[in-house]
């Protein structure tokens, strides 16, 4: 879901770049040196996820994992995704310098929104872990698709058809992404809960079973 270079009009490119820059500034402020390695790991996973093609019926789509990044990083998702996109641009020429702002905004704003919706759900234990994680992954990709086609549609009336096709084609990816995020989050919560910077409280799992699981993992 990268918008290529030279497609969008300069006004949109500039305003998206300004918004992304603001997001990256907030993220860099919130990023402390102790979390740098974890952030780098997640940024690298975002990059690697785009190389993993998962079959969906006759075609295949690649993972995005931005919901997971949002859940774990919050605002720091902005610099993490910016870095991964710069690497993708340099190594594979997906996107590029002028569309970096648009692409960062479209990919990194949804995780930040998801962070505010779903992290409270996970910490106060009101909903089941899998349910919240599924919708976190689903919503992040859905919002990214909506933002991407939205910016494309803002580019002019003639882009509206392309935007519609883009949006429709990413529906299966949203569902797969939700499923994968649900399993990944519950796996990590069982095996290595210290990966989360917050404690997960679920209605089912009692704290004793969780600490037992983590002690066997170590």
């Amino acid at each position, binding site marked *: 879901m990268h918008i*290529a270079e030279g497609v969008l009009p300069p006004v949109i490119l500039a305003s998206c770049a300004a918004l992304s820059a603001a997001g990256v500034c907030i993220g860099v402020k919130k990023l402390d040196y102790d979390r740098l390695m974890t952030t780098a790991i997640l940024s690298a996973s975002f990059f690697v996820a785009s190389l993993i093609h998962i079959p969906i019926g006759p075609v295949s789509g690649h993972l995005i994992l931005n919901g997971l990044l949002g859940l774990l990083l919050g605002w720091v998702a902005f610099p993490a995704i910016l870095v991964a996109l710069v690497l993708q641009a*340099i*190594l594979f020429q997906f996107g*590029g310098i002028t569309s970096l702002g648009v692409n960062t905004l479209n990919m990194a704003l949804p995780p930040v929104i998801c962070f505010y919706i779903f992290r409270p759900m996970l910490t106060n234990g009101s909903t089941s872990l899998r349910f919240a994680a599924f919708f976190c992954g689903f919503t992040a990709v859905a919002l990214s698709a909506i933002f991407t086609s939205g910016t494309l549609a803002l580019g002019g009336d003639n882009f509206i058809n*392309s935007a519609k096709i883009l949006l429709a084609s990413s529906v299966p990816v949203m569902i797969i992404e939700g499923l994968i995020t649900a399993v990944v989050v519950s796996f990590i919560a069982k095996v290595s809960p210290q990966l989360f910077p917050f404690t997960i409280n679920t209605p089912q799992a009692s704290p004793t079973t969780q600490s037992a699981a983590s002690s066997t993992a170590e």
Partner: protein
Amino acid sequence: MTLESFAEGTSPLHSMDAAAKLVAATIFSVCTALLTTIEAACGALLIGLLLLGIAKLSARTLAKRLLFVNAFIAFLWLTLPVSTAGTPLYSWNGFTVTHEGIHIALLITLKSNAIVTAFIALLATSNITDIGTGLAKLRVPQKLSLLFLFTWRYLHVILEEYKRLSTAATLRGFVPGTNSHTYKTYANLIAMVLIKSHDRAERVSNAMKLRGFNGTFHTLYTRQSSPFDSISACIIALSGIALLAADHFQIMELL
């Protein structure tokens, strides 16, 4: 798997300072993105191709890469000519291809390829570590340039880990398909990769702290920036600006 497909080479562009190339590529890309006429976009594409010629890259990898980049453009060609209002050029089954539609699709194709060719010639010819130090030299916030370098470092760790686990899955008879088993397997695999890489990163982080890491990353490759670098960067940037000026004042129409 080597990710830096174009970084090996001996051309003048390969030996240029990464910071100078970053500046040149940014200015050139921004100028090209602002172009509005086909003639100026052709000029930009010519400059891009010229830079590629100087970089002397492997033609096969290059062709593959450009084909891939143009997939998005091809998708726009499917919709743009019929969904732009204007003077009809050709009509078929209720779809009308307009002159304006073809014009805008062509302009986008030229601009996009111009930027991509220049970008490959300038930035894909540096290795990532050099670009990271180049970013630091350009006064990008230290946390960002460190994050860039560490991400590049861990990318390989994660990729290796992922490959090892997916080989293990294949050996155990895992064939991906459209079913919940496939998705669950991938998810468990990804979670395991994350956990393993996180543990490893934690160990590296502790080791670095014990050795007195204070946030500065010392590079072993020091390259003296020569006046040649700044001059060539200036020429590339100026050619972009000149094209933009020509486009703006419609000098092309006078020719």
